[in-house]
């Protein structure tokens, strides 16, 4: 798999998102799914850019993969501080306005919009694996989301 590598800085965020979006467009994935995957990836990438390297210089690798079973997979890799996304507690979505913060929804967004999110620590790397099913009926063999 090829990875796109850019510095972990905000000005490179559009480049990562363009890459992911264009891959999905090339696969004929519908716009509704593209919207959700792009939003989920943006939230994870922004989180890495803001916090992973604690102000130091760092980079991010993004790779995408499409499996015949109908799963679009995004791999987001950084070499910053160990951060297991799976251990982040979900915010209380039933909370009243007074109990809510202005931030803290990003990872919840990503979890809600993707079908599956996994995390691995491999030596110095945080690897986030984000999966989105793009078949409406599993096992039907017909990719209904394709143009």
């Amino acid at each position: 798999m090829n990875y796109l590598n850019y510095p972990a800085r905000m000005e490179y965020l559009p480049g990562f998102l363009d890459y992911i979006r264009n891959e999905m467009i090339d696969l004929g994935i519908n716009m509704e799914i593209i919207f959700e995957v792009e939003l989920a990836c943006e939230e994870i990438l922004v989180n890495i850019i803001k916090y992973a390297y604690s102000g130091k210089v760092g980079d991010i690798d993004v790779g995408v993969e499409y499996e015949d079973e109908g799963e679009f997979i995004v791999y987001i890799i950084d070499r910053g501080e160990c951060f297991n996304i799976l251990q982040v507690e979900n915010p209380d979505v039933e909370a009243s306005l007074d109990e809510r913060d202005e931030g803290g929804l990003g990872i919840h967004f990503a979890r809600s919009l993707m079908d599956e999110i996994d995390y691995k620590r491999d030596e110095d790397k945080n690897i986030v694996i984000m999966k989105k099913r793009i078949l409406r009926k599993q096992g039907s063999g017909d990719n209904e989301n394709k143009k």
Partner: protein
Amino acid sequence: MVLHSFLTVFLSVRKKGGQTLDIRIDTRETGDQSQTVEVHGEIDVYTSPKVKEIITELIEKGNNYLVINLEGVRYIDSTGLGVLIGALKKVREKDGCINLVCDNPQIKKIFNITGLVRIFGIYKTEDEALKNLKP
């Protein structure tokens, strides 16, 4: 005679897909303490600070009743939602209210998964949102 004020702000923030991404924010007075804010474009990590600045300024000028029309919004991320939550907290401190206009299923899904459908009044049309601006 009541003079209604209008303000339109254009902002070009970044290149996306090879094109400049623009956001347009129109504000117009709809009553003594009320304004409608119409946003066109994407409310994300890049544009949210500008949206926040404009809404905060309106609230600081005593506009405690706002209708924020999101019909022209194609994309909103968690930073954008944070701006809306912060604005609602500010107006509630003054017994005000913010209603949203949104009929886009993708954007509405975002409000559903975050539970914000229970916090904001969300209406299909601006007229409905204006009629229901209550403390």
